[in-house]
């Protein structure tokens, strides 16, 4: 009853605050769109490509200092082979058909190989086309000369060289299946980050203003329980956090059309846990702030560092002590889980442990908040 009253009040307050609504619901979409436009172009990296039955012409056109080719004499056990030789892609040519299998765990590498192959083939075609055109021109010149010399006599028809080979590329992916870009790879981390950031800020500042305006102590002069205040806050702002999560996830999947291999519900579930943690952490941090500006000071301290460990930068490549730090950050568990669900199609049981850890974080901060309310009223 008292919790419902509190939730109702929060919903009313939020509805009356269009700025907050825009900050929560529109700002993340704006930034995501901007990043989508900025990051959808690829940066290059060193890649290793296995080849089988690829003719020399293609090989010559593929060669670059960012692409190492390794020849094989069969294409058996492709997956094991790619793993063993650390190949980012494997190209097989049979007739006019080119089969490319991408390992696709690093999406920028996939994109690089894909573009190089396409460019290589185009270069080849252009060269062939030039040769063909030259040959055709020669034929025509000779015909014209013949025409001039032997005006009455028709020269024997000369054969015009054929068109260049039109290869058909068909792509295969070990992980995921798509037109992936760096954006797709960064996206899982970005989604989690935005959910975290905006929920943290809004819940923190709301409880802060509740405290500085005196309404919190007024609230504590009623028979409300301390934990009812915390639960009321979690529910009230939780509703907005969930709506925000839905908007962000559906926007990225259906409007920005990212490759989603796993279940959208799993993505939502993970993000709802992130929102819950952000809510609880925001409320917790607000107790250490005296004003909005001090609340903002927690952002570089508590929020930004988590981004780096959320999968935006591959964790495996980090120093061991940095990896250890990653494990105390909620966004690390959220980011890696989301990445695995979105790009590799991990299932609930695959990320279950991470979800449990996230739930643990949420419970820890909720408990700390309920404890923290004792500062304001002893009972």
């Amino acid at each position: 009853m008292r919790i419902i009253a509190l939730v109702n009040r929060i919903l009313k307050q939020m509805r009356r605050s269009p700025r907050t609504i825009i900050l929560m619901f529109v700002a993340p979409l704006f930034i995501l769109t901007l990043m989508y436009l900025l990051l959808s172009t690829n940066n290059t990296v060193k890649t290793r490509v296995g080849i089988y039955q690829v003719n020399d012409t293609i090989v010559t056109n593929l060669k670059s200092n960012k692409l190492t080719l390794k020849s094989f004499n069969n294409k058996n056990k492709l997956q094991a082979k790619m793993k063993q030789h650390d190949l980012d892609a494997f190209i097989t040519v049979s007739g006019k058909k080119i089969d490319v299998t991408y390992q696709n765990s690093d999406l920028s590498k996939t994109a690089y190989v894909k573009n190089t192959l396409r460019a290589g083939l185009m270069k080849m075609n252009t060269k062939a086309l030039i040769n063909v055109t030259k040959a055709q021109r020669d034929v025509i010149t000779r015909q014209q000369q013949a025409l001039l010399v032997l005006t009455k006599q028709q020269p024997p028809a000369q054969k015009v060289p054929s068109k260049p080979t039109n290869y058909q590329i068909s792509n295969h992916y070990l992980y995921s299946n798509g037109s992936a870009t760096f954006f797709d790879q960064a996206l899982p981390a970005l989604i989690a980050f935005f959910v975290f950031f905006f929920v943290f800020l809004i819940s923190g500042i709301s409880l802060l203003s509740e405290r500085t305006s005196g309404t919190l102590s007024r609230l504590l002069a009623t028979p409300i329980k301390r934990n009812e205040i915390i639960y009321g806050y979690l529910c009230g702002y939780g509703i907005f956090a969930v709506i925000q999560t839905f908007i962000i996830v559906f926007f990225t999947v259906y409007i920005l059309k990212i490759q989603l291999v796993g279940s959208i519900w799993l993505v939502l579930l993970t993000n709802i846990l992130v929102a819950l943690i952000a809510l609880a952490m925001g409320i917790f941090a607000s107790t250490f702030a005296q004003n909005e500006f001090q609340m903002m000071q927690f952002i570089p301290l508590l929020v930004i560092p988590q981004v780096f460990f959320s999968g935006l930068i591959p964790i495996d490549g980090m120093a061991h002590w940095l990896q250890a730090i990653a494990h105390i950050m909620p966004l690390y568990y959220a980011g890696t889980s989301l990445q695995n669900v979105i790009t590799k199609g991990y299932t609930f049981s695959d990320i279950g442990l991470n979800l449990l850890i996230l739930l643990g974080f949420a419970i820890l901060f909720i408990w700390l908040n309920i404890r923290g309310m004792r500062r304001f009223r002893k009972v």
Partner: protein
Amino acid sequence: MSSTAEPIIVKQVAKSYTSGQPVLKNISLTLHPGEILGLIGPSGAGKTTLIKAILGMEAIDRGEIKIFGTTMPNRKIMARIGYMAQSDALYEELTARENLQFFGQLMAVPKNQLEQAIQHASAVVNLDHVLDRRVSAYSGGMKRRLSVAIALIQSPDLLILDEPTVGIDPELREQIWQELEAQKKAAKSIIITTHVMADAEQCDYLMLIRNGLAITQGTPAALKRQFDVTTIDDVFLKAGRLQDANNRVG
């Protein structure tokens, strides 16, 4: 807990904030049923601190506080108390009606009586015609009146009002006092802090607080007689000088 117990008993309470200087030094008081007790004293005397200690919102270092026989702090007893804080604690984005609804719900006013309770409480402070306006559009005086209305919402047995008449015009002040008198007749008990001497005159019993001590107490008439003056202001001035003189001697 018995309903016949004294609404408030404060016994030898001392309190200092972590920053040092004691704010309350050995304060005792009793509020009897159907009585209006006025705490008067200059700004910084410790009135608000005493009020918060009574409500259990500030921890005390020493002494004992009971409300209706229950040792404070106690959560459930809050339902029987109508509290008005010194600074308005209102939700500015909400309308006055929504503020009253919210606190009414927290105070467990039954749903079918809430509308009537809001009507009554807001009529006392002349806000019944502007209930659906947002608090952010209220003037300072209107906010003060809304705070009074919130304190009255569950028609509590005990009213604790911290400077209820600041920024309220004389006419309305009179109206609020009429309501306080009506509450008193209904056997409700009231404790108010004030530095408006006109308020002090209307209390049944006064306690003058200065430097964290109760320097004197009694009915307004008895105090004026005791100090041989005609206004409470003068009582205060004389009592204050006496305290300073004693300090110099002691």
